[in-house]
């Protein structure tokens, strides 16, 4: 047993986190910054932060993840990181020639109180930022929120630090896709365009974190939202933010500062959340929904109805991020499953309230916790076993010990491929989620079947 020390009996823990379902802000900021074309993310802290974030993102995407660091030493930690950051800005533009640098802070630079805004000003005054190049920045203390918070902070920074209002509309909609995979970003763009709407999607990691092998390395691959597009977000007709925690701050800031009206929706995962997404876009832009989208919806419904018997009443345990877990739980309920244990590491009261609302039909016997950890989730499972576990890669240890069918979903996925290429958002993404869930459930039925009841046709 790999998690042999996890007892069934649950005791209260107030200070010790075991097997977290979250990580720290800066990695989210780095991921978001990679979704701008020609951008070099920069970590203002000690080297280790940047190395850890790059390693984790690299393992998750199997793609180059380039980012720089202020390489704090003890001296910089005592005297402040201004000299390091100004020098870094100079060196990055000279050596790596990006269009912009996106600086995020760390617990180190936050604790010593570095004022990044002032340091960037100084870099400009010292002539370290070449003409036509930019430095944007956001504050991402690791001791507040989670990686989702860091993503949100960087997305907000890229919007408000670039947006301009010329008074002339660009005829576009800002779409903030949330902390989702590059494949999901492509799918969201496709849906919006199919509706006849011209989007500015930011950030957009598609093409950057699922790039082709060509024999030529490009430090800044094709893809990403351009600085020009980001500047234009202040002239858009409206903004839609997907996922409250990851996207609301950015679209609300554009609303407040540039009077671009916004709506915040759940991530379009599953039937109903995608319905709301399409319906909102349709209403906001005043367009008709083309048949192609309605057909996709029908196909998802078709698969659900065909496979009901394998799904109905099956108990599910889930670990992940709130923006994903809310529509995912809703989807599981929609298809007849019973999510019984749901945990996120990201703090925020709204999460538990939403989950309880979605699972209200099951009464009060649902375990939901935010912030909680995977140790608690495992203990819940020991007390009330489930038929399916949906979690990131770390879920494999629970799945193995408890022998539970398991679908990898969320961040990070370090031991399988697919997430960068095949979306789980939208109606088509819903079919992929179903395929994955049915795959593991039916494999289990095959594995456990008696010889006489081993079915050819299922």
């Amino acid at each position, binding site marked *: 047993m790999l*998690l*042999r*020390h996890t007892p069934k009996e649950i*005791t209260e823990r*107030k*200070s*010790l*986190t*075991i*097997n*977290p379902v*979250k*990580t*720290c802000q800066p*990695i989210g900021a780095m991921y978001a910054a990679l979704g701008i074309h020609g951008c070099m993310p*920069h970590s203002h*802290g*000690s*080297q*280790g932060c940047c*190395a*850890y974030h790059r*390693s984790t993102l*690299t*393992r998750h995407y199997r793609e*180059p*993840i*380039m980012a*720089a*660091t*202020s*390489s*704090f*030493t*003890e*001296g910089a*930690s005592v005297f402040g990181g201004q000299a*390091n*950051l100004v020098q870094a*800005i*100079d*060196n*990055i533009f000279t*050596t*790596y020639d990006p269009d912009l640098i996106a600086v995020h802070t760390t*617990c*180190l630079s936050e*604790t010593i109180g570095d004022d990044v805004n002032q340091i960037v000003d100084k870099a400009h005054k010292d002539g370290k930022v070449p003409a036509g190049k930019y430095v944007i920045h956001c504050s991402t203390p*690791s*001791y*507040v929120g*989670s990686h989702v918070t860091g993503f949100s902070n960087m997305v907000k920074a890229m919007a408000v630090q670039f947006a301009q209002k010329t008074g002339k509309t660009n005829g576009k909609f800002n779409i903030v896709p949330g902390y989702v995979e590059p494949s999901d970003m492509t799918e969201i763009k496709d849906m919006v365009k199919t509706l006849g709407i011209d989007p500015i999607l930011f950030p957009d990691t598609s093409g950057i974190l699922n*790039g082709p*092998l*060509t*024999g*030529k*390395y490009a430090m800044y691959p094709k893809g990403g939202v351009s600085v020009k597009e980001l500047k234009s977000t202040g002239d858009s007709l409206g903004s839609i933010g997907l996922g409250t925690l990851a996207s609301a701050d950015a679209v609300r800031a554009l609303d407040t500062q540039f009077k671009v009206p916004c709506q915040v929706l759940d991530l379009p995962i599953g039937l109903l959340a995608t319905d709301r997404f399409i319906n909102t876009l349709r209403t906001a832009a005043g367009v008709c929904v083309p048949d192609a989208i309605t057909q996709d919806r029908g196909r998802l419904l078709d698969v659900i109805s065909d496979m009901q018997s394998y799904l109905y009443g099956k108990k599910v345990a889930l670990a992940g991020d709130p923006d994903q877990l809310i529509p995912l739980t809703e989807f599981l309920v929609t298809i007849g499953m019973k999510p019984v244990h749901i945990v996120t590491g990201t703090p925020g009261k709204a999460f538990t309230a939403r989950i309880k609302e979605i699972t209200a039909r099951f009464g009060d016997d649902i375990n939901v916790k935010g912030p909680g950890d995977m140790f608690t989730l495992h203990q819940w499972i020991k007390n009330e076993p489930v038929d399916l576990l949906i979690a990131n890669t*770390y879920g494999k*240890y629970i799945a193995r010990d408890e022998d539970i069918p398991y679908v990898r979903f969320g961040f990070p996925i370090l031991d399988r491929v697919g997430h960068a290429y095949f979306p789980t958002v939208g109606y088509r993404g819903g079919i992929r989620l179903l395929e994955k869930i049915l795959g593991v459930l039916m494999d289990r039925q095959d594995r456990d079947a008696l010889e006489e009841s081993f079915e050819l046709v299922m």
Partner: protein
Amino acid sequence: MTGKRTHTVNPENIKKEILAKYPAKVARKRAKQITPVTEDSGDGLQVGANVRTVPGIITQRGCCYAGCKGVILGPTRDIVNLTHGPIGCGFYSWLTRRNQTRTASDQEDNFMTYCFSTDMQDEDIVFGGEKKLKAAIQEAYDLFKPKAISIFSTCPVGLIGDDVHAVAREMQEKLGISIFGFSCEGYRGVSQSAGHHIANNQIFKHVVGLDDSVMDAKFKINLLGEYNIGGDGFIIEELLNKCGIDVVSTFSGNSTFDQFANCHTADLNTVMCHRSINYVADMLEEKYGIPWIKINFIGAKATAKSLRKIAAYFEDQALIDRVEAVIAEEMAPVEARREEIKKRCQGKTAMLFVGGSRAHHYQELFREIGMTVISAGYEFAHRDDYEGRHVIPDIKVDADSRNIEELEIQKDEKRYAPRKTPEQLKALEESGVPFKAYDGMMPEMTKGSLVVDDISQFESQTLIQMYKPDIFCAGIKEKYAVQKHGIPMKQLHSYDVGGPYAVFTGAINFYEEIDRMLNANIWQYLEAPWQAAPELSATYAWE
């Protein structure tokens, strides 16, 4: 990668090309860490090392915490390793290093699959985190009743002044188990190397010597600086056992608290990774009288040489004979496989930028299959790892090294027992078993090669474009950028998903892995047919 592969590039020109790109100040600094080898051997050349990375220059390096928690204590299975800090550091160092461990049964402690953190929040940063740390230790104790708990400090801990050592003492007194802390904040030192040192010092101070029971074995050694990545430690120990040699303790692959506690009862220390552990070998000699030798179990010939050194040390003819028999038995299949694979790898070129010893050790394996190492360098080594231990007295102690504690070691009055007399040591040295000796990487670098310390992203890209190596070895952060060039990239930190590569059976694994990577079909298909011949010369079939 398209274009002719060559290694007849002048390394001095490459150095110039690299430096030309940097701002003047950076160029001056980097110049000291880039050493072209223009004579037949790099012996005697200086390589600047263990100095600060320039901010903004994309580095391979990580931090002190990574070296302490991730590298040294990561592979110890029965200590509850508690990260005191915000969640990230604990999360990223959770199971990502492929240290394997093997317990005899489910009853034995193994906490390596768990991540323990105090998950500090803003109120802990403002009001101090000691209270939360104490409570977390209590909760860990109540849940697991471990024999030891260790505390790892992350950047903010040092800045806000939490005294993890005082908390450790207090909780040790209260709970009656071993509890110790590490001041391994990420900003200390200039790389992971500082963290190795801090980790090893604390293990030496708090654990080594706690258990005096002596293993019932004739030839007892410690294996220092072997981390059991991909199971290397397992097959090294199997081979040693086959020879009749027993391992008291490994620092720190597949290790336990009790092994550390007992390591002073061994009769010889063998050092694999010189960088991360040579000072522990020195301390064990000073305090307990155990001599140390440098060994290398990477490469079949190096393995044979290392086994012979160990056997010679014990001066026992039966052991010497048995070692020779084992070498003969193990070497035969290695040679057979090697000759077959060599045909496909001969003359190809490799670059190695990794670690504090592997960029040196793995050159053995490449040479065995006929390949040439055209450029190499370490990520976090010191000058002695390049130039040999004779330069240690010349190394300037700078501000960054000064704040890494050096322990003052005294002879242990009761337990100091020299394993050999000075005369015996001298005789052994004369017969070819040098003690406390390591010549470093430089003597093995050949003419035309380039040594680069703490290589940057821009520098590796330039080397790839100019030298066009057949294979490049580094870590996960470099892997896919290299492969986008169309050049296979082997991770030599984590071994990708491969290994073990140590000793004889591991050598075969490595030859086969390099054969697969160099000769895989995929690299031939980088161009689509329409890219290879874009002009439309044929007629349409349906015309």
